[in-house]
């Protein structure tokens, strides 16, 4: 077999030199692919006012970490998981909205396993490049029985602010504390 022949033909003196360079190339390839994976690759077309989002937690009737489309339809904020399943809340029932950001490691379990098996702590080097920043939109709303709900959505970077502004223009409320925090973060930018 060619690759076993490669290892067999390695002299003890240059074995480490050659094999190390092989590992180095492998780590470089993984790092580059992870970085490429973390980039925004051509966003798919979605109808006006609807954005791809991941529901992290809290939206009634939706499982955590579900991917779907977040949209404003009429007087409601709707999260659509698939063609049939969708959940919505009335925008008027939203009494607090806030933005945040989140940096997460990408690649899921496959990349985590790949990082774990890389020698010379190569996995750590890959971790430096394999993270991606997201926006988060946190909404607090009241259900018909008066109960307080909170939900967190993860959106592509730069998308959450436009959605928040649209929700505010349609009647969603923002608490004073959140307003102040948003002003401070804008000033810092």
């Amino acid at each position, binding site marked *: 077999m060619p690759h076993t022949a490669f290892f067999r033909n390695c002299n003890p003196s240059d074995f480490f030199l050659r094999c190390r360079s092989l590992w180095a190339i492998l780590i470089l390839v993984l790092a580059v692919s992870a970085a490429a994976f973390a980039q925004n690759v051509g966003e798919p077309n979605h109808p006006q006012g609807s954005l791809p989002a991941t529901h*992290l*937690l*809290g939206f009634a009737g939706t499982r955590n970490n579900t991917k779907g489309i977040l949209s404003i339809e009429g007087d409601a904020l709707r999260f659509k998981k698939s063609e049939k399943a969708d959940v919505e809340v009335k925008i008027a029932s939203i009494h*607090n909205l*806030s933005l*945040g950001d*989140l*940096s*997460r*490691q990408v690649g899921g379990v496959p990349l*985590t396993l790949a*990082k774990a098996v890389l020698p010379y702590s190569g996995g*750590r080097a890959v*971790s*430096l490049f394999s*993270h991606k920043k997201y926006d*988060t939109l*946190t909404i*607090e709303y*009241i*259900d018909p*029985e*008066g*109960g*307080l*709900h*909170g*939900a*967190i959505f993860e959106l592509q970077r730069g998308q959450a602010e436009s959605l928040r502004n649209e929700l505010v223009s349609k009647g969603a409320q923002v608490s004073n504390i*959140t307003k102040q925090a948003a002003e401070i973060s804008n000033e810092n930018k």
Partner: protein
Amino acid sequence: MKTNRPAFLIMTGILLTLAIARPARLSAESAAQWTVQVSKVDSGAVGLTPSFRVAIYENLLQELSKTKRFKEVLRDGDQKAMNATNLLLLRTTVKKYTEGSETRRAVTTITGATKLTVQTQLFTPGGKIILDRTVNGNVRFMGSNLRATHNLARNIAKTVKKSSLPEPQASAVSKAMTSASSNEAVFVELP
């Protein structure tokens, strides 16, 4: 074949008694349960982001339901709380928050932990504190920063589950009534 008839009769008697007594005991247990209302998380003086505050609240509701310690777990502001008997109020105040980083955890392993410390209190409607604990929730290695809120909620639910709560009013009254003879006055100290 010779059978031991008295032993057989005694066994049947015991089984019948257990079968009759069991449902009554179960219904008494379920009647004795408290209903808990989870209040909105208080960020205290700590600059906790709204997403963390909401995540603690939502995870807490989920984890408390899983314990099956309470008849019902109600949200803040739920109108059902007005009619609920044996209602407890759970208040959570954030005392300490250390912001971590998932990337730093992945790169260095030993730094970048997200740490949360909260004070959790259970109140009766009269305002009497029946549980007051400080609980931690961290994420040190794997998982996103929000994972700390899940771990925290699980720890709070464990603490509440382990703690001994006083008996609710209804069951305290019924217990006193059954233990007292017919011509005795019954005094029940309500929480």
